[in-house]
């Protein structure tokens, strides 16, 4: 019996080393792994909040309408109802924050209208398209069309009840 205890004592040293090693591992792990790691899954939970902090560039149509309700009404009644303000006017979150300091420039009509309305067989057939070179003969689109309500009413429209 005494002999057995003496042999058993040899295991104490490796056991101690193992426990100490485990302890060192746990301390280093606790120090190195970010606090929120594993909060929702195998990733840093705080990353979600970090990504949310990014500033916004496009204020959104609802924000525009709060001040520019007159233009919004014209647009909502016309063919461009589904086009949000910033789709043509560009990102204006800064303008919404401080309207006086950040005055937006008017968009370049020559480039802007063509991007959507230049004829392309790949575009859906319901979408109004023109070959601009033939359609306007070099005139600016805005000479005839009002961008917020671009349809030009004709006598035929009055008969068919269109006229938007």
């Amino acid at each position, binding site marked *: 019996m005494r002999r057995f205890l003496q042999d058993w004592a040899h295991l104490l040293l490796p056991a101690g080393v193992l426990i100490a090693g485990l302890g060192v591992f746990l301390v280093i792990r606790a120090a190195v792994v970010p606090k929120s790691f594993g909060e929702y899954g195998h990733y840093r939970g705080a990353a979600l909040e970090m990504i949310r902090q*990014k500033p916004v560039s496009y204020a959104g149509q609802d924000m525009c309408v709060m001040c520019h309700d007159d233009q919004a009404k014209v647009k909502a009644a016309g063919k461009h109802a589904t086009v949000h303000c910033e789709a043509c006017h560009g990102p204006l979150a800064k303008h919404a924050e401080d309207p006086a300091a950040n005055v937006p420039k008017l968009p370049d009509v020559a480039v802007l209208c063509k991007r959507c309305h230049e004829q392309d067989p790949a575009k859906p057939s319901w979408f109004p398209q023109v070959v601009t070179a033939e359609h306007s003969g070099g005139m600016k689109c805005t000479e005839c069309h009002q961008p917020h309500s671009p349809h030009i009413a004709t006598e035929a429209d009055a008969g068919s009840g269109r006229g938007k």
Partner: protein
Amino acid sequence: MMTRRDLFRIGGKMLVLASVGATLEEITGAAPASEAYKMADHWWGMLIDIDKCIGCGNCVRACSKENNVPNGYFRTWVERYEVPEEGQPKVESPDGAMNGFPLPAPANVKSFFVPKLCNHCADSPCVQVCPVGATFLSPDGVVLVDQTYCLGCRYCVQACPYGCRFLNPETNTADKCTLCYHRITQGLTTACCENCPTGARQLVDFKNPKDPIHEFLRHNKVQVLKPYMATEPKVKYHDLDGAVR
């Protein structure tokens, strides 16, 4: 006098206590959840209506400006397919359609536009392969990258079957569509949806019973890209042609 055994015993106890303390601090000291927005109430995705896309590239420009995407890289882009009756389709995307499609498609071939972006897969390969847990599916269903944790190993870039990821040359970390997480969590729509003139792109919340997507799905046939990859994409395409890959 302290024996060697005592040293190990006391030292071991102290180490265990220290690690338990650190773990406890880790659990209790977690960052507080954000105020009004509850992640558990949302499951984000997108609906893309091919029959409404006019290939203007507004979404690509908006995404680039909103998210400061480096030149020549795209978190979203638009492809133009020309599909002949026989043979391989021709796919174009000049500069990601950043300036639309300056040249029209030939009139004698079927052609259409396909906007592409991260599919925010519910079972995404990119998340599975990340060796460090830097990319993940958020509880509200958005696949995101933790820029501070990414090593830039590009494993996820290779794993994505849709080619939606790239290595950002400025940060040297993986980059991708965040579904404008900074916008949708404060009640705004994504930059691409905000700027789509025809409503071809719609942000949808599958967990919101009032979202028009449920009505739409009841009455329309939709498809996802590469369904055989079993990635469960949350970007649904309406009117998608079989030629699209």
